[in-house]
């Protein structure tokens, strides 16, 4: 297993405790001296960078003299907030913080793959699956929170006679949402990596730059799509039957 420099650093510092915890929880660790995989280390790196950025923004917040970071984050939060007001409508402010954090995590995870000694954690299927699972439970939780037990009516359709059939269809359709969120993000980023490698092996100079540019564009678009779909699912789940 090839380790990135950051992964090697984390493993050197934390291999002992991490292996002990994993073995205590019942997992079989294949490499006890390197229990942290590349994608886990990259996720940790992304979260550390994001938290440092957030601390920097909080420390320099000012009403009279906003700095560059404050402008950028106001812009990001305003963008997500406007979108969610359009899509979710009333009561959108509860979800804005989660959606912004999700967007920043996925964006940074996608973009970190462009730097030489790092790789995108979203290029492994586990990470997009994690994001999709959290989003899935999040929107179901808020659907139940806003609608109570009437949430089940979302699955039953308009005609009572067809409810059993429609319940099965809705059940599988919600599972398909989980799969489609995961695979869309994973396949876009992973395919971008593979295509860059393929063209790199053909024409080492110049041409792969175009694919790296494509990868940047795809990273932004896929982040936007993921957050947008999360908003759509949230809006659907929290819709009150007025």
């Amino acid at each position: 297993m090839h380790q990135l420099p950051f992964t090697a650093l984390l493993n050197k510092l934390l291999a002992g405790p991490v292996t002990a915890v994993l073995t205590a929880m019942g997992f079989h660790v294949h490499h006890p001296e390197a229990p942290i995989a590349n994608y886990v280390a990259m996720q940790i790196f992304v979260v550390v960078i994001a938290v440092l950025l957030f601390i920097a923004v909080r420390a320099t917040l000012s009403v009279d003299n906003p700095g560059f970071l404050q402008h950028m984050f106001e812009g990001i939060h305003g963008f997500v907030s406007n979108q969610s007001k359009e899509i979710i409508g009333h009561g959108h402010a509860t979800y804005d913080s989660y959606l912004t954090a999700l967007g920043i995590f996925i964006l940074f995870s996608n973009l970190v793959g462009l730097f030489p000694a790092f790789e995108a954690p979203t290029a492994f299927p586990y990470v997009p699956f994690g994001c999709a699972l959290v989003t899935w439970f999040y929107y179901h939780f808020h659907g139940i929170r806003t609608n109570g037990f009437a949430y089940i009516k979302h699955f039953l359709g308009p005609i009572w006679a067809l409810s059993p059939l429609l319940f099965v269809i809705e059940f599988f359709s919600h599972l398909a949402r989980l799969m489609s969120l995961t695979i869309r993000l994973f396949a876009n980023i992973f395919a971008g990596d593979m295509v860059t490698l393929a063209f790199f092996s053909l024409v080492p100079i110049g041409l792969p730059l175009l694919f790296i540019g494509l990868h940047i564009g795809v990273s932004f678009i896929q982040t936007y799509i993921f957050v947008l779909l999360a908003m759509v699912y949230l809006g659907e789940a929290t819709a009150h039957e007025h």
Partner: protein
Amino acid sequence: MRKLGMLIMLGLMAAPAFAQEPAAAASHSLGVGNWALAAIGLGIAVACAALGQGKVASAACEGLARNPAARPGIQLALILGLAFVESLVLFIWVMIFLKVPNA
């Protein structure tokens, strides 16, 4: 008549001898044929997706030309439509990527 029937039964008893031959298609793999079929399937998928994305983009262009003031909404619908069509191609690509290299 009975002797003919017994002869036929004796002939059928030889059927288990066929089981001694080694199973020819144990892995159900066509070798390079797997890759060829995958490439053809993916080619068809990409062609149909390209047609679909072309329709999405052309509808967005027409809408934008008629009503440039509606740009935010049209841009949103354009990006969303393109991403949905692309994700269908990526589903079949993931299936091929998972199964074909491992025969």
